[in-house]
């Protein structure tokens, strides 16, 4: 769902948490803030589509994007 409500500032939701989106920010910039780098076993989806690791640096984010960053955890 795209949020079309006019907003003063650009924003994104990262793992459900709304945060400001700096102009021109790439997915890699957002992942830096989570201390996620290309060495880590994580995966990322933007608006429920997986964004491959090789595209992180070039993937520009738009206001209202929902970013999911997941990693393997203990599970059964």
């Amino acid at each position, binding site marked *: 769902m795209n949020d079309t409500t006019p907003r003063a500032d650009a924003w994104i939701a990262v793992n459900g948490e709304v945060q400001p989106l700096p102009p021109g920010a790439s997915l890699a910039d957002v992942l830096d803030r989570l201390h996620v780098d290309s060495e880590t*076993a994580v995966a990322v989806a933007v608006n429920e589509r997986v964004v491959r*690791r090789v595209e992180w640096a070039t993937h520009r984010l738009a206001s209202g994007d929902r970013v999911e960053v997941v990693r393997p955890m203990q*599970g*059964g």
Partner: protein
Amino acid sequence: MEPELERERWELGGVALRSRLVVGTARYPSVQVMLDALAASGTNMVTVALRRVSPGSGPENLYRILADHGYHILPNTAGCYTVKDAVLTAELAREALGTSLIKLELIADDETLLPDVVQLLEAARILVHEGFVVLPYTNDDPVTAQKLEDIGCAAIMPLAAPIGSGLGIRNPHNLQMIRSRVRTPVVVDAGVGTASDVAIVLELGCDAVLLNSAIARAHDPVRMARAVRHAAVAGREAFLAGRMPRRMLADPTSPMAGRVEGSVPPADPARHP
């Protein structure tokens, strides 16, 4: 380590294994106990879940720890209630871990954690089409098992009892029927409570057991891991050995001829009133 225990090789989802145990990595008192228990179980394949990286916290590298210990990693879609979430989680798992293996779980409700087989079949179809090696967690229903095999799943993983219940093998007949009706490996997943449950599953001819709480929630997880390892070997060997036929009445083990004179069985009151 007792590497000589498992002498047979088998294959699950294209991965060559020796151990008949797939072991979960959750609910251990510590990472060290988890690693010690995994080693004691002799397993070659372990499961992981995928969860959000929390903002501000650096990710612990569970993947690296498990991979460095040489385990094959089987990600799951635990906690998914919809086809959409399960498919996305599988796609994220493939991206994060570089594996097409997926333990497909589609849960109906929180209280029972029983599989929603209608959604399971749909998600399995999508994921098989996307090239995943799908290992579905399902009910102990032979009809659903056959449908999952027809879709192209690489194994069938019926439950023994609800997840985390430790209730043991509730319906051995259904598990046996599933085993006799599908060609893929049958891995009994969920509900195992202790070592004898593992032995029973393998004696029935099922190919493997996936367990987690039975080890992790035991008073001594490492000791229980060793116990289930021996149970798995014992169950598999007993299956291969072929059990004796069951009889309704006794069959004397010692020869009846040449007994001491005077040893006459008492009259059967039912036959000689």
